[in-house]
């Protein structure tokens, strides 16, 4: 079944196993090494080719290193390239021998031919050997000044490679500032683009330890820099254009006229044949116009056609990537795409991953005017030979039915599915009819008539069976045979493997009993007996509960098991709007294809330079004994920098709110919220390490847009709720804390001011810890030095194990504290916040 793991090593004529051949090659290379005979280069070429081909298929040819180097003294550029490729591959495992290559590489770096210079420099920097870095600095320095653009491009990338081998060497040689200079002045667009890539990487990684670097990184987003790149955009290759556009996305324009200038400048990028350029441009357009409702909607209209063209041109893989992005836009603003529904019809030869996306889009865009056609189309797919797609199509019909007001026609279709006599169609349709009845009880007569005709023997899938049984119980008064069907199902109790079905059976027979006692009594007794003897804990417990309820009082039992129900108005959405917003913020990235925000699938160290990052990872959390005293471990070195960047934000961000730098344009009535979102956007730029801002800003924006998307309601304080009390001996181990911190959304984030007494008392983190502990709020990690402190607190509710997590960043010089609160139970987070604040405000008070 599984392929052999070592498929590559399996001996086959084209893929020799290795050993003998390698030693053969070794002796042949030796013979050629010193030879100056005519035609020797040709034989060398053949040998080198063999070596490289072994290398490719995974045979270890590192033992030839010495011989390869000896043979590399040649003027034949093809030979040189092969040799460099080899050396680059094996230098890391042969650091000593790699030293041998330095000489000739350095010599080639001074060759008259720019091609050779570039090639040698690239290879020199690709050796990835730490103790050779001293040899790189010189050639790189002259490479950056080379008069050939090609060599400069290579040198810029070389600087980045050097940075990855030895960051300190790179920084000490002052290469980043040389790159910055080149970026702003070089005439070769590719050099500029490479500088941009290299600087983004270097400064993002340096930003955690150097204030200057983080300032430089923000400098990339400065208006002069962004405009300089934008004005040259057509000189760049299509790939470099993508790079520039990604940068522009993060730029915050001053006012709407600037926004329109940028959009007009980039307008023709939407007609580019390269999908990556188009998507990057679209991202710029979408992000720039987030706070301008009308324009934002125009953008949607404008990008529709280019996106559809990209979907239908290019390879299936490319069109899938574009379709995923179209999908997220359709899900966000279905009404804009409702007249384009025919574009989302499935073609018979499309792969299922494409069809699934299209079915979701069809479901989303269905409205009063197109539902009939969409449902007709979906019904065609239900008969499809592709069974998973047939199932999805039926589910899609159901979803449309649940989101529409007028479901007449759809109900008929669903009922037709039940009559199609394909087991999987029946199964899916039963589940849907059940959901439909929960929302539209008025349809019960029509549905029950059809459902009643289905023989339970033809329904095997647990979900479908459970649905059928639920309907039998719920509508037993209307289904003549209900007690008898249930009875026969109970007779086969032992053959029923799904506990879900058995649980439903118990409940259904109870409901049936309350409505038609004489007919059901026998079945009920049998079901309870079987349930009590069931090996499955839940089934057993439910049977016992019912049994005791009935013993206690039948009418109470009825009120418990079969109370009058309200129709369901909206079924819960599977993905929270916060997650959806975060994916939207990461437009034109893998997040869209995976339908997950990046923190769910990208390792921390590989998250983009300016992306959302969850800084908890930076804080080392001490182990905590379950005792009363929480040993507090100081936060590690780099946490300090986090704090620094926070304080910096306050210093630079504070005045700019009032000043001119980012002043929000006045938007009449909506000016307040526009300003709010503007401020949030600004925070995103100046301090990338504030998660939660994304969701907040887009929430505000959603309101502005009035897109009618489901927005998570702010947790409303419940005035009548009992006062929150905390467990004074709460315990939480650090890994659980870390896990929870990652999983939970932020329920509140606030800024308090710290009283002068508090500032005075906060000489060391420990002081606050002891104080908060007195209020049953425990610290799990803390760190920092005056004026910046950072704490992670937790607390638990007194009666239950519901936990609150708090991140608290305090700057004593500005007397400000920033809180971010996460909670298991969102509804009480307001109450907790109040509690926290009152405890916090007493800090330093006598």
């Amino acid at each position, binding site marked *: 079944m599984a392929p052999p793991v070592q498929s590559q090593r399996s001996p086959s004529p084209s893929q020799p196993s290795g050993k003998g051949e390698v030693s053969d090659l070794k002796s042949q290379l030796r013979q050629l090494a010193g030879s100056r005979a005519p035609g020797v280069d040709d034989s060398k070429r053949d040998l080198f080719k063999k070596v*490289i081909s072994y290398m490719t298929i995974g045979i270890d040819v590192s033992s030839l290193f010495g011989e390869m180097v000896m043979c590399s003294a040649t003027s034949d550029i093809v030979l040189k390239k092969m040799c460099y490729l080899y050396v680059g591959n094996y230098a890391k495992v042969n650091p000593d021998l790699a030293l041998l290559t330095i000489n000739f590489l350095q010599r080639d770096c001074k060759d008259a031919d720019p091609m050779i210079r570039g090639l040698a420099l690239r290879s020199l920097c690709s050796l990835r050997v730490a103790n050779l870095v001293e040899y790189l600095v010189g050639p790189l320095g002259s490479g950056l000044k080379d008069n050939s653009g090609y060599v400069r491009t290579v040198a810029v*990338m070389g600087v980045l490679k050097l940075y990855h081998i030895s960051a300190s060497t790179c920084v000490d040689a002052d290469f980043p500032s040389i790159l910055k200079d080149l970026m702003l002045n070089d005439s070769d667009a590719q050099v500029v683009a490479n500088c941009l890539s290299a600087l983004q990487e270097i400064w993002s990684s340096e930003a955690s330890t150097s204030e200057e670097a983080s300032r430089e990184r923000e400098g990339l987003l400065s208006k002069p820099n962004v405009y300089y790149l934008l004005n040259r955009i057509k000189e760049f290759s299509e790939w470099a254009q993508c790079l520039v556009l990604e940068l522009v996305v993060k730029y915050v324009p001053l006012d709407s006229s600037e926004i329109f200038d940028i959009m007009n400048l980039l307008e023709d990028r939407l007609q580019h044949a390269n999908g990556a350029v188009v998507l990057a441009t679209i991202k710029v357009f979408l992000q720039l116009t987030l706070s301008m409702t009308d324009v934002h909607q125009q953008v949607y209209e404008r990008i529709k056609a280019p996106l559809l063209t990209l979907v239908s041109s290019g390879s299936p893989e490319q069109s899938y990537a574009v379709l995923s992005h179209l999908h997220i836009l359709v899900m966000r603003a279905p009404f804009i795409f409702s007249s384009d529904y025919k574009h989302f019809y499935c073609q018979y030869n499309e792969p299922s991953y494409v069809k699934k996306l299209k079915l979701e889009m069809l479901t989303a865009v269905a409205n009063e005017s197109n539902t009939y056609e969409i449902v007709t189309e979906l019904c065609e797919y239900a008969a499809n030979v592709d069974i998973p797609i047939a199932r999805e199509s039926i589910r899609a019909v159901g979803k449309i039915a649940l989101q529409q007001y007028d479901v007449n026609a759809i109900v008929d279709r669903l009922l037709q599915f039940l009559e199609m006599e394909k087991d999987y169609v029946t199964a899916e349709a039963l589940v849907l009819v059940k959901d439909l009845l929960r929302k539209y009880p008025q349809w019960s007569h029509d549905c029950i008539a059809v459902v009643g005709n289905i023989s339970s023997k033809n329904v095997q899938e647990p979900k479908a069976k459970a649905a059928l049984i639920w309907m039998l119980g719920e509508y037993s008064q209307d289904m003549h045979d209900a007690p008898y069907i249930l009875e026969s199902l109970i007779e086969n109790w032992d053959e029923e493997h799904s506990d879900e079905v058995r649980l439903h059976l118990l409940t259904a027979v109870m409901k049936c009993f309350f409505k038609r006692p004489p007919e059901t009594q026998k079945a009920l007794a049998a079901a309870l007996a079987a349930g009590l003897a069931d090996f499955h804990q839940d089934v057993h417990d439910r049977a016992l509960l019912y049994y005791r309820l009935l013993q206690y009082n039948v009418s109470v039992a009825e009120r418990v098991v079969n109370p009058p129900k309200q129709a369901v108005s909206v079924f819960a959405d599977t993905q929270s709007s916060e997650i959806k917003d975060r994916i939207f913020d990461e437009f034109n990235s893998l997040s869209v294809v995976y339908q997950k925000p990046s923190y769910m699938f990208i390792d921390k160290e590989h998250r983009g330079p300016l992306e959302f990052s969850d800084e908890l990872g930076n804080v080392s959390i001490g182990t905590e004994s379950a005792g009363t005293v929480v040993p507090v471990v100081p936060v590690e070195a780099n946490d300090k920098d986090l704090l620094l960047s926070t304080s910096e934000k306050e210093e630079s961000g504070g005045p700019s709110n009032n000043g001119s730098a980012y002043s929000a344009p006045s938007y009449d009535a909506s000016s307040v919220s526009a300003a709010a979102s503007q401020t949030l956007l600004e925070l995103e730029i100046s301090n990338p390490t504030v998660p939660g801002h994304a969701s907040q800003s887009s929430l505000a924006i959603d309101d502005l847009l009035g897109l009618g998307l489901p927005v998570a309601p702010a947790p409303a304080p419940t005035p009548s709720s009992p006062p929150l009390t905390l467990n004074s001996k709460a315990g939480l181990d650090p890994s659980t804390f870390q896990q929870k911190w990652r999983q939970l959304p932020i329920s509140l984030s606030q800024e308090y001011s710290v009283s002068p007494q508090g500032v005075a008392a906060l000489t060391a983190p420990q002081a606050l810890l002891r104080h908060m502990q007195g209020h049953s709020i425990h610290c799990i990690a803390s760190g920092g030095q005056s004026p910046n402190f950072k704490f992670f607190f937790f607390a638990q509710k007194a009666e239950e194990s519901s936990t609150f997590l708090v991140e608290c960043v305090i700057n004593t010089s500005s007397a400000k504290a920033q809180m971010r609160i996460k909670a298991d139970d969102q509804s009480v987070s307001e109450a907790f916040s109040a509690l926290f604040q009152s405890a916090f405000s007493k800090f330093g008070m006598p």
Partner: protein
Amino acid sequence: MISQFFVLSQRGDNIVFRDYRGEVQKGSAEIFFRKVKFWKDDGQEEEAPPVFNVDGVNYFHVKVVGLLFVATTRVNISPSLVLELLQRIARVIKDYLGVLNEDSLRKNFVLVYELLDEVIDFGYVRTTSTEMLKSYVFNEPIVVDAARLQSLGPASIFMPGTKRMPGTAVTKSVVATEPGGRRREEIFVDIIEKISITFSSSGYILTSEIDGTIQMKSYLTGNPEIRLAFNDDLGIGRGGRSVYDYRSSSGSGAVILDDCNFHQSVRLDSFDMDKTLSLIPPDGEFTVMNYRMTQEFKPPFRINPLIEEAGALKAEVIIKVRAEFSSSITANTILVAMPLPKYTTRASFELEPGALGQTTDFKEANKRLEWGLKKIVGGSEHTLRAKLTFSQESHGNITKESGPVSMTFTIPMYNASRLQVKYLQIAKKSGTYNPYRWVRYVTQANSYVARI
């Protein structure tokens, strides 16, 4: 940026493997191949999506002539960028080798490494332009005999043997010098259209779309400027609200494209005035323009499928295909397929008398009827009859259990959109300079479906 690039054969062997950043483990090719080969979703075996994540490593792949072109990365990069890049790498390699397949790749892997080093540095793309790469790449391609190759890519439908077209051109390397010394000055412009259409059971058109692309491959020295002129009545962007409003444009006769995009070398300065594009074509094959049209057009084929019960456990299928284009044009490699009810056990076929070059088949495994025709001449009509035997009664659901009928075909020198290249003008260097120009049309079925 990407971390690794590799090409795998159908069996999963590494043909080329390049690690740019050393961030992803060496065994990634094996992990990738196992995942792709045995992709499962909800326990159901399916085709793997082009992008997926295993243990923090993102794998991107495109399939080109049966080979897997793969890139890996650990960062959250734009998927379009990587997939586009993989496709471009394949194209650059094809420009160099003339033919892209496993054999030619294996013979030229050193050249491919050389290309890869110039295309990508430390995971960042430098260039994918064959034109630019030419000055940095020194290996001579070892040209593989093109005659034995099966078709690859849309342009290869211009098969050798057709009198009007030089068959070897498409498989000619952009860089290799011809045996005769100087290479021939020529330029190819291919207008390739793919039709998607769905006929309802009553034969009326439910949806239709033409996805067109204009490919150019230039072997001109000195990069002269080129002007392409289209029909005067060509328009881009439909004024109407709904793109599916068929009536709005029919009768007017104009060719209205819904939307299009262009290669970055294309200048549209005078497009609105005289419907011409001007460009300086770079070396190698590239897409001048992609376009999309949902305007009503005349479908090249009409399909009339019929399935009827003929007694218990028996049914008869009749499929009629009528070619609605001019008799001077011939469609080739036509295949008509129709899924039959699951309980079909046997199918016996009856072709029209005197049928030539037609094949019929009943695929037992997936219960599919297949009817192949070598050629269909414009204006002609062909019929297939099949008698089916069932293992159980159909309960009158027979039409829901079978179909839809799908069709694939290729029609050279025909395009459904009526978009035309009126002339191809090459900026003159001298009075005697007169390169060969080939403007070729072809139409293919993308999803050509008739419901029952």
